[in-house]
């Protein structure tokens, strides 16, 4: 049993308790992993705060509950962690809990005229029929303040005033990597403020999970961040295995690790292609895709899928590796090492590319941690946050690899971190590929899996940051609540911080280097 240890705090003490932990002398909990909204029925609404100390790696969970369902209020912690601002909006959107002190209490994923809060257990699924009216976005947000006498006062904050020249970038735009919409206030070519509007691909996966059995929930993870399909599924499988106490074979661990790294190379190659295309150079795009197709071939032989593979299952993997797998992987790595120089020749060394990337969009280490910008983005700012190093899973504690970090925090550093990670992934695969042990690739599991009561969480290093699974089980064959920590949501949240004062063209380049995938943000 590896259930999370949860500390229950009273709603009114939440801010003080969180503040004490955040500024603790010994191990400050400076990284807020996620806020998971919860509907405990009779007990009331509430939220779980997953936090981590970046220095020691210690993780803690706080739980706050409010019994009043109609007027649910919790104190906001957005003064302590910047990422809390957008995460609290998400909780408000899904559960209707208002956070006092958060300056921006608009809906995050759903339309502003949406009725009800979908992730509450008593939500009527048919209460919002398809509305084909064009959506109007309000330029004001609401802020709630808790008065000393216990009453709540509302106040309006202005997002864009009448003097702002607001350009809509998205939702249908070639360079937002999906259907992200950024309302951008500009002054000439300079950006004054960005207000990301999400939810154009919000598919309600977390709500759907609550009516699916555990093996069924796996199918949806691949569609979250389709470029980290293996990682996402790996995290969920690990979480369920951990809760159910299933030990998987070493062979399966090896295969999962190799597949994860192949997926990472695949995703980073696509990152390269898309970044270059966003910056207007079309030819290198084709180079990236040329090598990516080779990975897809290898994966297709074993898993049967090109993009969405459905390969990891509870207890191991779906099928054994193809007999040619090892040979082809080795050939591919040899080939990749020989062509990666071309990539650098045509783009990294290019004077225009450097001018566009170096010193642009600097994200400081403090901001990266406070905003929860994990993955390559955080590592480019000097924040060592690789889950594979700090909380090893699968085979990562047995292989030797380097965590790539840089200190500049600009677009170029973000780009170089990912390019170097390609080589590091090759290095990991080379250590494993010849030593895959014989044995079962999948242990037998019961047809219906029931997990014991408790909260479980795992995290993996996906292609673009820490992907977390937060699961609450009430001993049923369905999860009571299954939440995914989105890798991209904090990254989109950093856009406003990073882009202010830059040019429109930089906005596109910065978006490319942050490397987010929208379906993973909206879930």
């Amino acid at each position, binding site marked *: 049993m590896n259930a999370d240890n949860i500390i229950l705090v009273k709603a009114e003490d939440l801010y003080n308790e969180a503040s004490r932990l955040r500024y603790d002398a010994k191990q400050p909990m400076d990284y807020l992993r996620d806020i998971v909204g919860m509907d405990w029925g009779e007990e009331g609404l509430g939220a779980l705060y997953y936090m981590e100390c970046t220095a020691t790696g210690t993780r803690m969970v706080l739980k706050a509950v409010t019994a009043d369902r109609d007027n649910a209020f919790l104190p906001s912690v957005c003064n302590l962690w910047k990422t809390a601002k957008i995460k609290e909006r998400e909780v408000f959107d899904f559960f209707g809990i208002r956070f006092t002190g958060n300056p921006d209490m608009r809906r995050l994923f759903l339309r502003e005229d949406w009725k009800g809060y979908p992730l509450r257990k008593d939500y009527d699924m048919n209460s919002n029929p*398809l509305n084909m009216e064009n959506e109007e976005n309000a330029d004001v947000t609401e802020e709630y303040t808790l008065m000393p006498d216990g009453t709540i006062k509302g106040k309006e904050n202005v997002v864009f005033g009448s003097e702002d020249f607001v350009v809509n970038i998205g939702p249908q735009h*070639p360079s937002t990597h999906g259907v992200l919409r950024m309302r951008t206030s500009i002054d000439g070519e300079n950006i004054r403020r960005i207000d990301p509007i999400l939810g*154009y691909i919000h598919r309600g996966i977390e*709500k759907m999970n609550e009516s699916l059995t555990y093996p069924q929930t796996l199918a949806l993870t691949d569609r979250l961040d*389709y470029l980290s399909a293996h990682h996402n599924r790996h995290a969920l499988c690990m979480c369920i295995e951990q809760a159910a106490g299933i030990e998987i074979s070493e062979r399966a661990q090896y295969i999962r690790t190799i597949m994860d790294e192949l997926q990472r190379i695949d995703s980073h190659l696509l990152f390269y292609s898309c970044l270059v295309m966003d910056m207007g150079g079309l030819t290198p795009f084709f180079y990236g895709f040329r090598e990516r197709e080779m990975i897809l071939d290898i994966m297709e032989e074993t898993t049967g899928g090109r993009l969405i593979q459905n390969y990891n299952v509870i207890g191991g993997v779906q099928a054994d590796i193809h007999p040619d797998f090892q040979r082809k992987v080795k050939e591919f790595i040899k080939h990749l090492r020989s062509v990666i120089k071309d990539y650098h020749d045509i783009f990294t060394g290019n004077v225009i590319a450097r001018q566009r990337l170096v010193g642009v969009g600097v994200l400081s280490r403090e901001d990266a941690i406070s905003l929860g910008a994990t993955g390559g983005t955080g590592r480019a700012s000097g924040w060592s946050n690789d889950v594979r190093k700090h909380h090893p899973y699968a085979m990562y504690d047995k292989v030797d690899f380097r965590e790539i970090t840089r200190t500049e925090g600009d677009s170029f550093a973000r780009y170089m971190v990912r390019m170097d990670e390609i080589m590091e992934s090759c290095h990991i695969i080379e250590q494993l590929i010849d030593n895959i042990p014989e044995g079962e690739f999948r242990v037998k599991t019961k047809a219906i899996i029931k997990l014991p009561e408790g909260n479980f969480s795992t995290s993996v290093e996906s292609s673009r940051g820490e992907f977390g699974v937060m699961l609450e089980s009430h001993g049923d064959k369905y999860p009571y609540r299954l939440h995914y920590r989105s890798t991209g949501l904090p990254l989109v949240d950093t856009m406003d911080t990073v882009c202010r004062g830059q040019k429109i063209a930089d906005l596109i380049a910065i978006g490319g280097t942050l490397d987010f995938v*929208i*379906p993973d943000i909206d879930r």
Partner: protein
Amino acid sequence: MEIKKRTDIRSMKYEEFRNNDYLERMVKQLNDDGAGVIVGTADELINWGRSNSLWSLTFGTSCCAIEFMALGAARYDMARFGFEVTRNSPRQADMIMVLGTITHRMAPVLKRLYDQMAEPKYVVAVGGCTISGGPFRNSYHVVNGIDKIIPVDVFIPGCPPRPEAFYYGMMQLQRKIKVERFLGGVNRKEKKEDSK
């Protein structure tokens, strides 16, 4: 002028296509209405141009968009068919390829984009999500099939479809365009019960 019954596509036999009956029905309708020789010949030329120059609007919402990029990349190279010119402005596009799930929030946007496009415009629904809602059919925020919002010309099933499937779908669209009429009446606006 009698319109040919068969719409040929290079390197694929007529019998190898499915849904030929649908096209034959369109041809029959055209022949029943009748057209002059000159108008008919001009129509054939126009249809040839249109079917070979399908510029798509880049409209990717999720996974299928990545496969569409793979379609454009070197191995599958849709430039061979002349499809490679993707326009980002709906005004200049000939068809909208809906790649990925359409949610309630996106639906009005999709409709608006469709309305912004210039005639002739075609819609290709790619992937399970756009056809029926796919794996997200039971969700509270997903449109169960974009044919509820805009008229669809070709469905390409898959999750996501392979690039080869994209090609098959595009060829079907080409075949469909080849039996249209530009001068003197448009036969695209079929009655609801016929468009199954």
